[in-house]
């Protein structure tokens, strides 16, 4: 988030490959696809809080800032509230997974009853060339 007045984002439809990563990651669910009438991912600027999450997950870098749009402060607050609710839900899901993990470790032990040591050496521990990270 950049300051009090965020810059909303927009998707370059020519470059977009419709992979849906941005839509699934958006904390305000501001990105429409099935209601656009075409196979196009479109950010509803009224719900965009400028968090940049969509731009970060985009594999083809087709999401850019749209400085021409001036957010309405009242609507922005509503959008932020939606983002908080989203974060709360995500946190709940994470907690549930942690509880299941704790139960699994309790059932099979931290190392696991069936585990065997790796049979072949792993690759050298050079830094990954993870260009997309």
């Amino acid at each position: 988030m950049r300051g009090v007045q965020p810059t909303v984002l927009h998707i370059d439809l020519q470059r977009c490959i419709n992979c849906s990563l941005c839509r699934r990651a958006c904390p305000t669910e501001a990105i429409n696809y099935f209601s656009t009438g075409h196979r196009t991912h479109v950010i509803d600027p009224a719900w965009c809080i400028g968090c940049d999450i969509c731009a970060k997950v985009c594999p083809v870098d087709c999401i850019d800032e749209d400085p021409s749009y001036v957010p309405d402060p009242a609507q922005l607050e509503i959008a932020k509230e939606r983002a908080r609710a989203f974060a709360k839900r995500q946190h709940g899901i994470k907690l549930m997974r942690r509880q299941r993990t704790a139960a699994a470790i309790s059932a099979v032990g931290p190392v696991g009853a069936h585990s065997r040591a790796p049979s072949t050496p792993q690759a050298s521990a050079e830094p990954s060339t993870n260009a997309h990270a």
Partner: protein
Amino acid sequence: MSKLADHIKETPSRRDPPYRPALLLDGAGRAELASKIGDADNYDLLQLREMVQTAPENMEFRKALVSAIASAEYAGVDAFSRKVCEWQDWDVPWSLIMAIARQTWDEVRHAQLATGVLESYGCEIGEYPDTLAGGAPPPSVTGNGAGGPPPGIMSDPIVTLSAINVSLEGGALRLFEETSKLGERIDDPLLARCYDYNWADEVTHAMIGDYFVRELALENPEAESRALRAHAMFEYARVRLGEQQTHELKEFFAEEMQRATAALGGQAGGYN
């Protein structure tokens, strides 16, 4: 029957049954799975990632995670190689057949890489159940049973490209990126490299899908609708969506139903 399919003999699977989907495990299968990962319902990619992150020293958790992904790669080889044959019966550009042939080889490479990672854990393919069931649709889908889509729909290039290349492979982008990062975090460079490598292929696969859906749907609104419908149905069945997106999808399906009803002259609206 396609020209290429004429020359390919149907060969029996080396496994019987060919696929052993996790969802169809019997009591004994679930109990065996639970003995390894605590609960058969933990055989879920997001849950397994959390388990590996929390207990990286537990090799069974790692084996389960990579097996779950690897089995889908093997199913991908099955599915996409079928498309190379089947789509010659459709009016599609030859460049699409070539793109899918390339994608098939990508899946082969992914399967080989995953098998290598599993071997480093002392695990073999087949120790864990499958997550997908390859390219041969079950009888209910091919139209021989009740409730499935009409015969041939699963072979329709635009449906497969939209549902599998764009939606499924699009989702795999996140899965591979997160799995690669997990490998870095738990100091498993083989895991990190394998899924970093695969990630780049998935971008290409999603691009292939989107590019050819656009090509096939050019100035053809009906084809574009079919693509969008396939994407919507796939997400509805497989993706955990937020409240707003679920609402958007429901509205989409409601509009589709209205259009279908109108096309049938109102005959399908008799549920009231």
